[in-house]
């Protein structure tokens, strides 16, 4: 399942999940920033957990649920997390953003009331070269509030 829809693909064994999503399913919201698992731009959810799609083969996704940034809101109806990033200027070039959104989505499900320190820790799995992170931290904090979270 990709974004809630059953998808069947024939892919070369060596093809990464990221490339299959981008090339075979035209889900180009998943970005490749390093292709060696450091930057986090390619993060998607596999069975609800954040995963580097550049380090996973597409064939390994057989039988699993994959969620990408395209599963969140649309331009007219942003998901509350996307809305918070928009209001707090939590992105500049936007290249790292889809991966951060997917990690943050999982994180806020696991920890609906995170402290700032916990958000910083979560974000340390992602590289952003534009924002300096503070506005991303503020956005995630605001999103936690918007989904009923309380600040500690």
């Amino acid at each position, binding site marked *: 399942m990709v974004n809630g829809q059953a998808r069947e693909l024939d892919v070369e064994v060596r093809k990464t999940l990221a490339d299959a999503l981008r090339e075979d399913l035209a889900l180009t*919201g998943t*970005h490749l920033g390093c292709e060696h698992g450091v930057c986090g731009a390619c993060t998607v959810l596999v069975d609800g957990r954040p995963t580097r799609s550049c380090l996973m083969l597409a064939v390994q996704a057989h039988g699993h649920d994959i969620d990408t940034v*395209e599963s969140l809101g649309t331009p007219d109806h942003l998901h509350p997390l996307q809305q918070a990033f928009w209001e707090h*200027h939590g992105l500049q070039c936007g*290249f790292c953003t889809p991966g951060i959104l997917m990690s943050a989505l999982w994180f806020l499900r696991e920890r609906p009331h995170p402290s700032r320190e916990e958000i910083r820790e979560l974000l340390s799995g992602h590289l952003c070269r*534009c924002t*300096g992170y503070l*506005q991303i931290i503020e956005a995630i904090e605001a999103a936690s509030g918007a989904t009923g979270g309380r600040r500690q």
Partner: protein
Amino acid sequence: MTGTGIGAAVPRREDARLLTGRARYGGDIPLSGMVAAAFIRSPHPHARIGNIRADSAGQVFTASHLDGVGPIAPRWDGQGFFPTAQRPLAADKVRYVGEPVAVVVARSRYEAEDLVERIHVSYEPLPPVSDAQQALRPQAPRVHEDNVLYRWSAAHGDPDAAAREADVLLRIAIGSSRCTASPLEGRAVTAWHDGRTLCVWTGTQMPFLIRSALAHCLGLSENTVQVIVPDTGGGFGQKMHLYPEEIVVAWLALRLGIPVQWIEDRRENLVASTQAREEQVELECAARRDGIVLGLRAHITADVGAYHVFPTTAALEPLGVAQILPGPYAVRNYAYDILAVATNKAPTGAYRGVGMTVGVLAMERAMDMLAERCGLDPVEIRRRNLVPDDAVPYRSASGLVYDGGAFQEALDRVCALADYPRLRDIQRVAQAGEKRVGVGVACYVEYTGLGSATFRRRGMVDIPGHEAAAIKVDPGATVRVYLSFPSQGQGHETTMAQLVAEVLRISLDRIVVERVDTMSGPHGSGTFASRTSVAGAGAVLRAAAYIRERATAIAGALLEASPKDVEWADDRLFVRGAPLRAVTFEDVAQAAYRIPQGSGITPGLEAVEYFDPPAPTFSSGAHLAVVEVDPRTGFTRVAGYFVAEDCGRILNPLIVRGQLLGGIAQGIGEALLEHSAYDDQAQPLATTFMDYLLPLAADIPPEVRTIHLEHPSDRPGGFRGMGEGGAIAAPAAIANAVANAIGVQVTRLPLRPEDILSLLERGA
């Protein structure tokens, strides 16, 4: 101010696309029948190329195929310049690891990389030059006929007399290591020739220069080359150069007659895209006992890598260091000399803060060391030397005219914001604990919004200097804005629309800022050196003013009133004193294309305007950093950060804050982490994000407190450029704070844990 005009914190209009995965970056351009290119790159820093042999059916293209395709040969109008010419695929010789030697294409990148493994290139290795000092030795191997690619010297006032008069003569050598911009999206080029036009999609900061350069290199007429800039994942200067890969991919599209795409991977970005900095500044500072600086003498040596880059050349960075070095200080006597030295490493180019970051680092370190020698507080010595606020405009010792700024005010206010006396108390108390606390200050000026006069005076003939904007109002009253300067994340679709909304008093929803396309947009230089809010905004404001004038005339004709009596508010135009005698902006747009009989209206509602700033306008400010250093591990944490800065009038506070914070984060990286290291055989050592460490969220201070002074400039809108200030001052402020914490003089960045431990060892 309207709710969406100048000064409004308008959330960005490009974000909906970027947040929902609908953006289209360079790697997302799909063309049917497209093939993927992959490059064969030199593993040697310096070698003669022998045979190139393919052991499979796939075709490999080398320099011999590209015979007649022009090299990258940047120009400089002035003395001391030794030109270089880089062939798009190296011929005869390679000069750095990662230099493209050959290229293959296949249906997918996977298959193209399979082919790369089957190409065998024989090399005859030559002795490499791994650093500038080595390159200057008489017996050093030659990267080019002359290893010095640029030399220059200048003197203002009488620095010799200043040295004779001085009570204190401070001599320091400050080093800045090689680093790289590392935008999260690497480069990507897609090209297709439809039989008439060569269309190139590339995330460049300077599409019009790329168009000219590609046409020149490929022997095409400029009007048959189109450059389209897709969504771009950061640039920071790295994407303001013409690269061999752009020429090769465009050539492949011409040669093969099918679309060709190349997407840079991270390793390629870290070894073969431009790198930056790597300078040694030997600074002699002559001062009186009371800390007043009488004169400066600087010897600047830059390790610029293997070639000049187009269009900035290798002169830009060290010349920038020299020109900015006196900074906001009232120094009258100053002499400098510059050497830009070729080595067998990747070419260096522009990176956020060009020249200024290293110039500020050297001067601010000198100020702290001088304070120590004179027994003064670091803030006090700066107060004594800063140009007084009432002496601005001020001509600096290097000839720059600071058109604004309140340097004393910025320093006073950042100290008040941080409660400087209390920080010193905290520091004293902390000395008893396990962590060492340090406070560092850095003052800076930033030249922004350069125009043709400044580029020509420097000798930079390849950069035009102007920007342009076109505005077309269609009959449906949609206001389309076409720019010469693309965004790499700065938010032009929002800020430039705000300018139009301000002038036309119309809803932001009517305004669409189009992506930059050289076929439809007006000609300009591009997005770099903090020029958008000055040169770009100037063009947009002028174009909007012309639309306003035309629309007012049309409204006057419709309302049978003199245009002088027409007023604007909220999408409406009405007769002064008679608000019911009104037409909507839509009525005006309609009338511009469906002329009412007898109205005398001339058709059309469009404008194209250019702006060429007559001189730079200066931003300035003071940064204050608080660090905690753990002497057992050498680990530094930036615990607090304070800024008082003046970027003139603020166009959008959200975006100004974003630029500032992003710049500071890059400055933290440069100060504490980042190093494009090479070994003594000129082999690159930082080839992944596990060796090239970018700052993480955990490396950023919990908050950055900021004051904006907002002294407007004389440029349209009153703005000063501000894209680089954070990255200019942060390395110096942090270096000073670390030195203050450990009580050992810091003379080289970065300050990684191992660097700090070795400094502590030496200090002890």
